[in-house]
């Protein structure tokens, strides 16, 4: 028994020490979803710079936020997460390093569509990586109306024919855009208008489904769908009759971005990594693997044709330039919740 115990203690001690003393090589710790930065790209980076990358993961932005706070914004060198969480983190203060743009030689490659957005004005803390958006997919052969924007979704002819992702802020935000207001509208009167519009939309909605709305569209149960770009892309891949619509009233986008935690142990390495991923040829090699849109204007021409022609993922600049991102609306969130629950209740 004693032998077993001492053996176990020995193992634990060696493991603890070995993990502490492995600092001979330069290392950066990357914190993001698994697979979001392809391994072959990381290997290329290590080969070129000699910096090893420790790749650890979270599955939701909120988890990342809790963890980063607990380690006092240290331990990790590069965090890659979604737009809105950075807004919360910026408000918290002391969690992120201000980005020194002179250390990112490829900064000028980044498309203007994805810079200086409402979640991080002036890109004080974040560097864009990849983007996705909410779009309309529809089948012109079976749909009774031609769809060009959100207003068409309210057409009574579409009764019971729409599938939509089950996201309060996305759906109400879409009504806001339709009325010419902000995606993050906080004005009470304007939200009341959005509520009326939503109530007109509800009879047309067959079902809300966030995970696989494209399958409802593919099965023919619905003829029009409001869904994320990756889902639109999946729908078109299976049925070429389905078309993507960039709503004329404007689209809501999401930008997954990098930040460097305030107490990151290796900030220089972090800058090198971010800069490396923004090299046009590197960026163009990443995006088809993760199936997200590039935020790098210089990479667009280098994308392989199949991916470049994927209209659901690569949205022309004219549509993205003035697009908004869903942000925290503070207490007004309760108003959104009320509108959402009431609209859903009324149709049940």
């Amino acid at each position, binding site marked *: *028994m004693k032998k*077993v*115990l001492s053996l*176990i203690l020995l*193992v*634990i001690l060696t*493991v*603890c020490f070995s*993990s*502490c003393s*492995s600092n001979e090589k330069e*290392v950066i*710790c990357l*914190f993001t*979803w*698994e*697979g*979001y930065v392809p*391994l072959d790209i990381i290997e290329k980076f290590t080969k070129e710079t000699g910096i090893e990358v*420790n*790749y*650890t*993961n*979270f*599955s939701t932005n909120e*988890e990342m936020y*809790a*963890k980063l706070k*607990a*380690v*006092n914004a240290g*331990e*990790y060198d590069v965090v890659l997460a979604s737009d809105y969480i950075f807004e919360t983190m910026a408000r918290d203060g002391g969690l992120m390093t201000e980005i020194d743009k002179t250390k990112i030689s490829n900064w000028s490659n980044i498309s203007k569509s994805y810079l200086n957005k409402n979640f991080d004005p002036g890109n004080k803390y974040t560097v864009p990586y990849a983007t996705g958006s909410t779009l309309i997919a529809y089948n012109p052969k079976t749909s009774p109306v031609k769809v060009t924007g959100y207003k068409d979704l309210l057409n009574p002819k579409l009764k019971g024919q729409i599938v939509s992702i089950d996201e309060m802020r996305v759906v109400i935000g879409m009504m806001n855009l339709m009325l010419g207001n902000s995606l993050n509208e906080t004005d009470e009167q304007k939200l009341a208008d959005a509520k009326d519009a939503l109530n007109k939309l509800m009879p047309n909605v067959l079902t809300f489904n966030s995970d696989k709305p494209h399958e409802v569209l593919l099965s023919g149960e619905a003829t029009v769908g409001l869904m994320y770009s990756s889902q639109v892309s999946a729908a078109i891949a299976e049925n070429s009759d389905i078309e993507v619509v960039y709503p004329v009233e404007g689209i809501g986008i999401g930008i997954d971005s990098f930040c460097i935690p305030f107490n990151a142990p290796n900030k220089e390495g972090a800058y090198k990594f971010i800069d490396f991923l923004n090299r046009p040829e590197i960026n163009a090699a990443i995006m088809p693997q*993760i*199936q997200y849109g590039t935020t790098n204007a210089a990479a667009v021409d280098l994308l392989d044709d199949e991916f470049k022609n994927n209209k659901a993922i690569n949205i022309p600049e004219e549509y993205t330039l003035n697009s908004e991102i869903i942000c925290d609306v503070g207490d007004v969130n309760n108003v959104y919740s009320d509108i959402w629950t009431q609209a859903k209740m009324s149709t049940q």
Partner: protein
Amino acid sequence: MNKFFKTLYITIILLFLYFPLIIVAVYSFNSTKSTTLWGGVTFDWYIKLFSNKSIISALLNSILLTVIVTVLSVILGTLGSIALNRFKTKLTKIFFPLVYLPVLTPEIIVGIAFLQIFSMLDLKFGLATLILSHISFCVPFVMIVVSARLNSLQNNLEEAARDLGASVWQAFFHITIPELLPGIISGAALAFIMSFDDVIISFFMSGATVTTLPVKVYSMMKVGVSPEINALSTIVLLITFVCVIVINVKKPTKNLL
């Protein structure tokens, strides 16, 4: 007719249990990346899996963690059960429920609690914090099973051994432990499973350098779970099945689990 329905019923139950696992295994040989479209047979995902450093290192971390946690939990849990069984005071009645209360607490709460305590103590998140937190939720499982075994035993044998001249330690190792063995093995199996597939607590406890396999797999949702994971799951399933079969064939009369 009756027999027909019995067979049908059992078939449906077995299908319900095993069909998803079979699908996972079948799609690990699928040549396309899709989980719905079949594109032909391939072994590419297995080759890719073994060249994927990120997944393999997470798997090794998970195995190392689980083995250490299981051994320590079994030792602590068994000793704890014996102590609770032997020294009955007024507090024992309160103490036992306190032991398994953490099992009933939602994992997210336990995870956040550990996160706060360890960051207060300024511990570096990594294997050490993972081990500590996993032991805390594995020990109760061992204790529940071992205590159940202890309660079904009579103390006579150990007393008889002492009577016949065995020392305390001899009686413990030659009588008590072998008697408890079935309970200890089931407890170890439970602890192993709980520790190996824990996601939430593991996420909060893992550090910038150490991550476990379930955390890695769960975070793949963003870009879609790759068939490499199907391949890995198939290997794990195969090992599990072989273990269960070996145990059952070796000891056909004594039911261990």
